[in-house]
């Protein structure tokens, strides 16, 4: 978002109290890991795994939006194509799951590089529209290409043996693997944000002309974060395909792009822990309100509207403001 946007906990970011914040963050990460360990005994593991994939997707998206200041309205392209390639690799090429996921993630990275290089040339709303156009083209490609199975999608994706010995058709094993992937992904995002690269990124987000005048090649940084964001979104999509054993058009549809924006907005843009909270809420809502059918759309719309009008910092953003520390 440009400088006209309300900055998220501005004092907290600009006045960095590194050690104290780091300790807080590490505590939260440990608590998260602990939560992930006990969660399957409380909740249906399959539902949790789906949630973790989307939490990673939202976190990856937030890297671009919250920290890069770029609203992409077409992130479903990376999530979805990675999902398709991963599914195809596991099913048709008979690759073991870690290679399938790698294949999917690489596809997303490549796509991110191509689309990003072209989209970066524009700013603001035009940037968003270009990403939307590319995502629509990806959708229609997925609809037509024979390997994606069109409406049916790629079904009955085998789960196989991770690294040759971990049996992923065992629910608990799969769960721990997904939880590990999620944690690693989020830790990576944390590392990126709290690195010199991340600092320059935030500077570009807040005032691009000034950053450029200081000698930073803004375009390179923007492209780099775009590719990183697309890659991690792809990791989420590729993992999801193995978990759900299905890759379908829903994954590349523009509604999916809209959903990830909602998750990030609701959870808190520009916070590390916000998007996963947002994802958890939205996925849970979809699951438990599933019997209400079309009302879910209405509820999501209401949440969107309220979030934009009253709640722009998102849940974790508000929390972060309250404790006066960045989250």
């Amino acid at each position: 978002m440009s400088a006209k946007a309300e900055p998220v906990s501005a004092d907290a970011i600009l006045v960095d109290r590194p050690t104290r914040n780091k300790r807080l963050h590490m505590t939260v990460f440990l608590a998260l890991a602990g939560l992930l360990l006990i969660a399957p005994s409380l909740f249906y593991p399959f539902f949790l795994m789906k949630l973790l994939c989307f939490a990673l997707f939202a976190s990856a998206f937030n890297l671009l939006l919250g920290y890069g200041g770029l609203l992409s309205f077409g992130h479903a392209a990376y999530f979805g194509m990675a999902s398709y390639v991963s599914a195809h690799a596991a099913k048709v090429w008979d690759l073991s799951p870690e290679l399938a996921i790698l294949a999917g993630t690489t596809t997303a990275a490549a796509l991110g590089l191509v689309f990003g290089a072209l989209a970066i040339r524009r700013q603001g709303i035009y940037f968003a529209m270009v990403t939307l156009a590319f995502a629509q083209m990806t959708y229609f490609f997925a609809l037509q290409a024979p390997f994606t199975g069109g409406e049916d999608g790629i079904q009955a994706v085998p789960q196989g043996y991770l690294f040759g010995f971990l049996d992923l058709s065992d629910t608990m094993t799969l769960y721990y693997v997904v939880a590990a992937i999620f944690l690693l992904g989020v830790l990576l995002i944390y590392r990126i944000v709290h690195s010199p690269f991340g600092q320059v990124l935030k500077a570009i987000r807040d005032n691009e002309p000034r950053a450029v005048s200081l000698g930073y090649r803004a375009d390179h940084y923007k492209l780099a974060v775009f590719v990183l964001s697309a890659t991690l979104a792809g990791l989420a999509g590729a993992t999801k395909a193995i978990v759900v054993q299905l890759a379908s058009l829903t994954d590349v549809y523009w509604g999916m792009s809209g959903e990830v924006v909602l998750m990030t907005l609701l959870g808190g843009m520009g916070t590390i822990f916000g998007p996963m909270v947002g994802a958890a809420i939205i996925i849970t809502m979809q699951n438990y309100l599933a019997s209400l059918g079309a009302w879910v759309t209405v509820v999501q719309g209401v949440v969107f509207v309220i979030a934009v009008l009253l709640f722009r910092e998102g849940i974790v953003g508000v929390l972060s403001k309250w404790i006066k520390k960045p989250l």
Partner: protein
Amino acid sequence: MAEIFSIPSAALYGQLLLGFINGAFYATLSLGLAVIFGLLNIINFTHGAQYMMGAFVGWMLLTYLGIGYWPALVLAPLIVGAIGMVIERTMISRLYKLDHLYGLLLTFGLALIIEGLFRNGYGVSGLAYAIPPQLSGGVNLGFMFLPLYRGWVVVASLVVCLATWFIIEKTRLGAYLRAATENPTLVQAFGINVPLLVTLTYGFGVALAGFAGVLAAPIYAVNPMMGSNLIIVVFAVVVIGGMGSILGAIVTGFALGLIEGLTKVFYPEAAATVIFVIMALVLLVKPAGLFGKEG
């Protein structure tokens, strides 16, 4: 029969004419969007839902109040426009000081709500709305049979589009509007009620969408998803034409209808994608759009 690229010329003209008719819809819808963005800098994602509401209001007027097509052509846009003004007053106006993208997110959320509500109320199968008897039947043009109603759609759209362009570019009211966008404080200082002008303009853009909805009701099924199917395409049209340009939206709308029609003849599977390919190309080469002015 003369053949052009192995398609009989009669068929080709028929397809072009049909493309032109579709273009009329694109033009009217993108006109509303262009008015709202060009003059108010609001990205109105709700436009598709408001188009759908226009069709539904027309249907409701007929079913519940027995009011026919012709009065509905005037009433439905007024009603939908009024609803739009309420939305602008209560919600959108709070976001003017913020980044434009929040407006997009808000209107996106509103679109979800409106479509969800109508889906719950009316299902997805679509409701029937008859072509008014004065416009049914058709005329045999030799190379194709043209339903009268479709011909009317083109005429009505052209009239409305040109009237709008004239009002905004050539009249005093339009001048106030354009001035208010560039420098609201100064215009306000002259005693012109700028917020009211903004609200009315939004209402007008929305009313255009509603008008397109009533035009569409007899030929496309009146169903809650009719807007979301079109909205992305209309956005593409506006971006190609130039997001601030009224004339751009009109010309591009018709032109894209023609291009889409041609694609349907030569390579029908790509008919849905061609507009996005063009949009991406235009954005990369001339981001302000073919007729737009950047800024």
